[in-house]
């Protein structure tokens, strides 16, 4: 299997330690869109940096309410501050949204594998993201830009429903002003004042200026978006084994014990969430999965 950075190791003592919740304090809350927000966290009792790989996730625990898996969306090269971006979709994320600066929450992690950012050294990188799917990709973007000389062309395609739904608009604006990264945004619906692209993100792939014969593509968004992105990448000439996706299932334990996040023969929390497309092709064609 050509998995991203797969871990087949049995459960060890260190994994058991990962079941322990560490208290973190909220230092900053950012309302990214009307239903999406980011939390900047620091360990309550100090300690070293929170090392993580781009694409990994943590379990965030709203005390007395429950735990939820949330991708880390901050800069892996500056791991002193831990940033998570989430949308208010359920009881736990709504409880997290109600927390104020200075409040504490529990953190377990980091879990899962990472985007293959080192494997992409020497290649062009085509990043395709939609909606809140940009959050798990942002650490990879930080990493790539921190090691920019090691990559060929880097292109970011991002789609959102409307201009108001664009995640991290200020960050994206900064990316758009860079000369070493090409960023293209598109929305599904807009008023006449919007000067950018209108249409789904897949329509941007054909004109992305990358060499398809030497390109790794990182894709993250709702599965419906990823499903329609894959044929466009293939049409462009990027082979399936050069495409990596971040999958999501119902992660609970984070260490592959409980089985809630089973995806075929793997557990998303342990073997994922980043998969090589070759390894999860069936998910996009089998209705039962």
């Amino acid at each position: 299997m050509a998995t991203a950075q797969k871990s087949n190791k049995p459960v060890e003592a260190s994994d058991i330690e990962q079941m322990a919740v560490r208290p973190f304090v909220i230092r900053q809350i950012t309302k990214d869109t009307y239903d999406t927000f980011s939390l900047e966290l620091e360990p309550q009792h100090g300690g070293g940096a929170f090392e993580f790989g781009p694409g990994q996730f943590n379990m965030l625990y709203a005390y007395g309410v429950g735990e939820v898996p949330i991708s880390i969306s901050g800069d892996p090269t500056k791991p002193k501050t831990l940033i998570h971006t989430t949308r208010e979709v359920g009881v736990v994320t709504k409880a997290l949204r109600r927390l104020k600066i200075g409040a504490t929450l529990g953190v377990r992690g980091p879990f899962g594998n990472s985007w293959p950012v080192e494997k992409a050294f020497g290649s062009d990188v085509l990043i395709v993201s939609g909606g809140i799917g940009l959050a798990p990709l942002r650490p990879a973007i930080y990493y790539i830009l921190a090691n920019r000389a090691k990559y060929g062309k880097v292109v970011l395609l991002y789609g959102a429903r409307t201009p108001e739904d664009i995640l991290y608009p200020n960050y994206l604006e900064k990316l758009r002003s860079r000369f070493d990264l090409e960023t293209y945004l598109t929305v599904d619906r807009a008023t006449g004042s919007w000067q950018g692209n209108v249409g789904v993100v897949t329509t941007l792939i054909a004109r992305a200026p990358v060499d398809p014969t030497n390109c790794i593509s990182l894709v993250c968004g709702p599965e419906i978006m990823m499903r329609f992105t894959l044929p466009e990448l293939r049409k462009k000439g990027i082979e399936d084994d050069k495409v990596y996706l971040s999958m999501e299932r119902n992660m609970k334990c984070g260490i592959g014990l409980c089985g809630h996040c089973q995806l075929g023969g793997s557990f998303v929390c342990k073997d994922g969430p980043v998969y090589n497309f070759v390894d999860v092709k069936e998910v996009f064609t089998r209705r039962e999965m």
Partner: protein
Amino acid sequence: MENLEQILTKHPFLAGMDAKYIKLLVSCASNVTFNDGDYLCREGKPADSFFIIRHGRISIETFIPQGGSAVIQSIEEGNILGWSWLVPPYRWHFDARAIGLTRAIALDGKCLREKCAEDHDLGYEIMKRFALIIAERLESTRLQLLDFYGNSSKK
């Protein structure tokens, strides 16, 4: 500097088309330039042309009463704008507005319609190319209707 025949011959939309038909298209073609905010076509007006966009971006819009204009789609360099000239009653269904300086090749659809009616081989060549564009736009529209990004459970 390339002439219209060279530009049309190399354009992917016309790839594989017989040289005699390219020459015929050249006789119906002209270079056009639009400044930011200029309209290439207006909803309801006669649709007697289509455009091969060479530079710039076009916003396809419709007017929503009491809601202003809504952008349905944007198209860019290399894309084709307009198929209303092919379909009765030959009137534009939407507005198309230039975003920034835009250069295009305008093709006289009325003239081309008549030539297609006279020469069905030409008509087939034109129709199969527009069918592909229409299919792509239809698929894109369907995806826009799917709420492509909204219901992600990705947190």
